[in-house]
């Protein structure tokens, strides 16, 4: 792989209530590529994603050791450094969950939420950005006439794209995606896959996936986390170029 490295983890160990989940994970991820993270269930794939935006810190009983660096503005930053701002990290590292989690408010408000959290108040800027994010998430055409409707009225696939749009509105450099199609039917899933491929141009994507066929379709690189106790095995595959 000839792309520059974006993220590197060193000797990452993780446990829930003293029960080890990840042990000694040392990995690299490349800019503007989509890395699929695979492995048997319970091996800590979702957990691994959450170490990259420090979201695990909100879950009781979790412990982590090791070092994670992400390259922002040309240099690597230790995201666990004391001086590092957590909200800033999470704005730069977006996340999409396995089950779509729109909040019970309108479509517009859902997507504008990250801006509100970031303290942006300029209404015309917000409207513009919401539109852009929806377009990037292939959702604009479907919802542009009903932005004030509740987000919960959307279909599952639409909800998941809404969540992606919501993560994209802050223009993150890294996007963490946790089995984004597992709760969707085939058609909705393929829209999401297409979307992820297009997003690669703008950010580094780490996607957890269960389905090998899906991995083969979308991944530039595949990383397998295995159950073996001391070392997580890593395989780098060159993705077959789509025809």
């Amino acid at each position, binding site marked *: 792989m000839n792309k520059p490295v974006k993220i590197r983890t060193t000797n990452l160990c993780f446990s829930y209530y003293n029960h080890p989940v990840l042990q000694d994970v040392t990995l690299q991820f490349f800019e503007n590529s989509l890395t699929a993270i695979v492995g048997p269930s319970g091996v800590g794939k979702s957990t691994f994603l959450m170490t990259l935006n420090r979201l695990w810190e909100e879950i009781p009983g979790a412990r982590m050791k090791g070092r994670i660096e992400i390259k922002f503005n040309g240099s690597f930053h230790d995201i666990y450094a004391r001086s590092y701002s957590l909200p800033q990290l999470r704005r730069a590292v977006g996340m999409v969950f396995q089950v779509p989690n729109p909040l019970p408010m309108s479509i*517009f408000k859902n997507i504008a939420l990250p801006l509100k959290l970031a303290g942006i108040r300029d*209404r015309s800027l917000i*409207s513009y950005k919401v539109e852009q994010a929806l377009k990037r998430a292939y959702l604009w055409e479907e919802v542009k006439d009903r*932005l*004030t409707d509740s987000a919960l009225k959307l279909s599952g696939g639409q909800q998941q794209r809404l969540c992606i749009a919501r993560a994209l509105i802050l223009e993150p450099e890294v996007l963490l995606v946790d089995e984004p199609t597992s709760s969707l039917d085939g058609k909705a899933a393929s829209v999401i896959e297409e979307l992820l491929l297009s997003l690669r141009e703008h950010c580094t994507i780490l996607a957890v996936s269960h389905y090998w066929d899906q991995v083969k379709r979308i991944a530039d690189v595949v990383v397998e986390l295995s159950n073996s106790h001391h070392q997580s095995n890593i395989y780098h595959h060159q993705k077959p170029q789509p025809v």
Partner: protein
Amino acid sequence: MSERISKRVSIIKMKKITTVLLIMACLILGSAGEGVQAGALDSFKDEKGVLKIAGGTAHIPVMQEVAKRIMEINPEIQITIAGGGSGVGIKQVGEGLVQIGNSGRKPTDEEIQKYNLKMFQWALDGVGIIVHPDNKVRNLTKAQVIDIFSGKIDNWKLVGGPDKGINVYTRDEASGTREVFWEKALDKGAISPKANFVASNGAMKSAISKDPYGIGYVSVGHIDETVAPVAFDGVLPTLDNVKQGKYTISRGLYSNTKGEPSGLTKKFIDYLFTPEGQKIVESNGFISIK
């Protein structure tokens, strides 16, 4: 689009706030009402504020009637009336918790001195023994009364009634009625621990009116057709008998203030002594002191 909606919401909010403000304004402005002409009550017209009364429960009907008349004339005045008993009245007025503390007994010299009390006796009253109207026992000797209340006599048949247990009702220690009854009828004898407790003269009357085998004591002013008075050593507790001094379990009704009363408090007490006030006293079954 979003702006329009948020504006609409804020208009609704504004409307709500205005309504609340309007109601509040009404509450404040509305309280300024108009008075009616009424002789002895004229002096209350330029008063306002809260007058608090507590203590003797025998006094309550009179207090309520006077308070009603005053508040009708001038809604700016709020008069609150609480019971509690004579002891409470004296204590609370002494501590400055209320402006007028009523008592159905004379405050002791110690109390008068400690709190610098001024007392105003505005009526004469008796404490009568009462039973249920269906109870045929209508006369008891002092000795019988003492034995009944101490629990020694515990069946009505021992005093000429039906073969039923006697249910004794009494008041708590703060009661002036109890104090007077205990002193003058029971010669400070014991009251049975089995006795039921009630909290006021009114409560005593309604308790006895519901209990066919009950016996209790109550301010003469509270006796009506729902209960039957019992002659004490042959003398019935009636207004006349108390007035003529034949009925010995009698007492004054007092209103006490801390120091010389002034303002609203003074006017209230003065009103009790006007012919109108004394008429209220009489219509409530007490004996006018004039």
